[in-house]
Every structure is written in C-alpha cells, then in structure tokens.
C-alpha cells in the first residue's frame, strides 16, 4: 500500500477498519452525497459529453476528465448521469479526494481492485466491473501523461 498516493492509502486504511456492511454502506452513501464537489464544471464539459470520456463497462454512465496542473500532476473531474448511480458517485469522490495532485507514477499504478477494498467482496461482477472501469480510466489518464512526458 506504500506506493499508493498518500491520501488514497489513508482512505483504504479507513475502510479496512470498517467491520459491518451497514457501516460500510453508510460511509459510502455519505461520500456519494458529496458528489457535487467533484462533478465536472460546465467550463470543462457539458452534456452531451464526448464519448472519449465515458467509462467503459459502467452502467451508471460515468464520465472522467483529467486536467493538467502546472506541476504536471492531474486534477480529475467526474459525472455520473444515472441519478441512482450512488456507488459510482462514491468511487468518484474517493478518487478525486485522494489522487488529485498526486504523483503520476503513483496514480498510474493504482490497481482497479481497490474497489473491493471500498465495497467489500459482495458486489456483483457487473457492478464491480463498472466501478473498476472508473479506476482504470483515472489510471489510464495518468499513464497517458507519463508516456507523453
């Protein structure tokens, strides 16, 4: 876990201390409720969005944008078109809060299965894939910038 962005490592540590499903759900819902904080600004993108930003395999219609900071790191923004897509919103908030401005090498090495650290093992294959797709998109953007550098 030491190679993760520092804030992400802390979030995962927090989740590892959760012992009950209800507590996990309550925490994730609390995060999802904050989604407006990380939603893409109209100045960056407005619907209908460019399909290049759509997360493959995510049935909640999640989108990801990455904007370069002056120091070369990235700030991510998200949208989730399905108003019932709470899990996707929670993942977006976790990622925005924990990888924005983090070293690209660290972001590029985040494994998609952190989704299971957040949600536990009892999510469906389809749901898990969609959420991992959001992580993969974030990772992909970091890798792309590293290649260009």
């Amino acid at each position, binding site marked *: 876990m030491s190679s993760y962005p520092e804030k992400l490592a802390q979030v995962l540590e927090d989740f590892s201390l959760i012992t009950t*499903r209800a507590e996990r*759900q309550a925490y994730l819902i609390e995060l999802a409720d904050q989604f407006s904080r990380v939603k893409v600004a109209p100045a960056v993108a407005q619907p209908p969005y460019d399909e290049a930003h759509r997360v493959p*395999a995510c049935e909640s219609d999640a989108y990801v944008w990455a904007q370069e900071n002056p120091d070369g790191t990235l700030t991510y923004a998200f949208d989730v078109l399905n108003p*019932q897509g*709470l*899990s996707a919103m929670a993942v977006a908030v976790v990622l925005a809060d924990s990888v924005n401005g983090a070293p690209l090498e660290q972001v590029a090495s985040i494994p998609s299965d952190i989704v299971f650290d957040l949600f536990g093992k*009892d999510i*469906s294959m389809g*749901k898990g894939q969609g959420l*991992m797709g959001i992580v993969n998109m974030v990772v992909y953007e970091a890798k792309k910038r590293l290649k260009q550098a």
Partner: protein
Amino acid sequence: MTDIQQRGYAHPDVLVSTEWVAQHLKDPNVRIIESNEDPLLYPSGHIPGAVEVDWTTDLNDQVVRDYLGREGFEALASRIGITRDTTVVFYGDKSNWWATYAFWVFQLFGHTNAKILDGGRKKWVDEGRELVREVPYYPATHYQAPERDDHTLRAFRDEVLEHIKRDGQLVDVRSPMEYTGEKLHMEGYPQEGALRGGHIPGAQSIPWSRAVKEDGTFKTADELRAIYLQEKGLDPQQETIAYCRIGERSSHTWFVLTYLLGFAKVRNYDGSWTEWGNSVGVPIVKGDKPK
C-alpha cells in the same frame, strides 16, 4: 380495468403498479421487498416499509455456487416477517433484474404469492414518491418451506446439453456482442469470468432489455409477442431455457416468457455463460447466427 390488465398479459395479476404499492404500504398481508445490484440504493432510501433481500448475502449459499437451502430460506422468510400467505412484492434497480431474480428464487421454494412492481425502483423514484432510510422491523415468523425445487424452473448444464441435442428452444439474453463472442471483456479491462466467447448452439439472441420500455415498465403482450414470437420464432408451447452470464438477466426474461406471455415451460439456466464459457468440451457457436 387497470393499465396492467389492459396490456394483454397471460398472468396480469403478477404485476402491480406503483399506485397499487402506494395503497398497500400499510397492508399487513403485503411485504414490499427491494432487491438491487447496487448495494447502496436500499440504505440510501427505499419505499416505506420495504425490506431488503440482497442477492449475494441473502439468496446465495456463501460457500458453494448455489442458492440457499430450505433452512436458509425459512430463516430469510422469518427475518423479513412473512408467512406463506404473505403477498411479497419485489422491486429494484436495473428495470427489476434483481427483483425478478429474487422472485425466481422465491418460486424455487414455492412462494407463489409473489408480484413484481412494474417499472421497479426507477419508476417509483421518477414519480417523486416517498423514500425513507428507516429500516423497518417486523416480528419474526415461523415459516415452513418445502425443499427447493430445482427441476421445474431451473436448468443445469447437463440438461442444457440434452436440450440442445433435441433442438430445444434457447434464449440468450445477453448483449449482442456477448452473444457473437466478439467481446469477452472490454479491452484493457478485467475478464468477465469466461475463457471462451460466443453462445450455446441454437440460442436466439434476445437481449433482456427488449422487454421493457424507457421508463422500465414492461411492454404490452402484443409488443412482446412481436419480438419473441414473430421476430424470433419462439413457440410458447415448447420447453424453453433462458440464460445470460450468471442467471440474473435471464430471470427477467424467464419472468416475461412465463407470466407475461404464458409460455408453457420456461427454465432459467443460472450457471449461464460463466459456467458454459468455462466448461471443457461443450459446444459453442460464434457469430450472429444461432447455429
């Protein structure tokens, strides 16, 4: 006559409207049950009085790939406070994928007094109806269930093999690209859990979503017949097996064929593609033709 009764279904009583549910929220003989794919939906707000039945933790055995047994079902029924006389009404996300899945599992234990909320969670939410976060408490009941019946409504791999030898009717309800074998998984993304792509020989491709309208409610019987009978040539009198990836989407189609179109005998192959696509030596067809 209600809108649902006017749609020409074989068994219209198995569907209820949002208005019907709203009128029965305090009916002690009715239990509203939410079943979702997204584990955050129920705790974030549900129909007042509704209980949650989770497909992973409540309906599946936690060790073997199988459903819960009789004792497990009795414990579940007791926990949600139902008797064999209680009318259970399922609803959920994804146009009722998981609601029909839970409904199907309840049928394996003979709880036939069951209904689906037409349009599911989405319709209830879209209509601006009340959602609450309070989890209701119901006194535990003493529910006596029969042994699970795996023969009438459920198909196993070897039975599917026999079925295709007899040229039996099969419906593949996955997406067209899963059916053709064009995509096992999205490029650069995790495997979907199968080593081979394609479909079971003879299966007609009819994605589950064709049975529902934009608002999540079911299409009329005429519209469904146009798809399943006229377009795809299914015979309602022939035995039919539906499958998808793990049996959840196909339980939706099982529901449509059985209750809305009145097919004589429909079974759900819940092993589905995660079993078939990983099995050694079973026949597979690639491309967009059934055979």
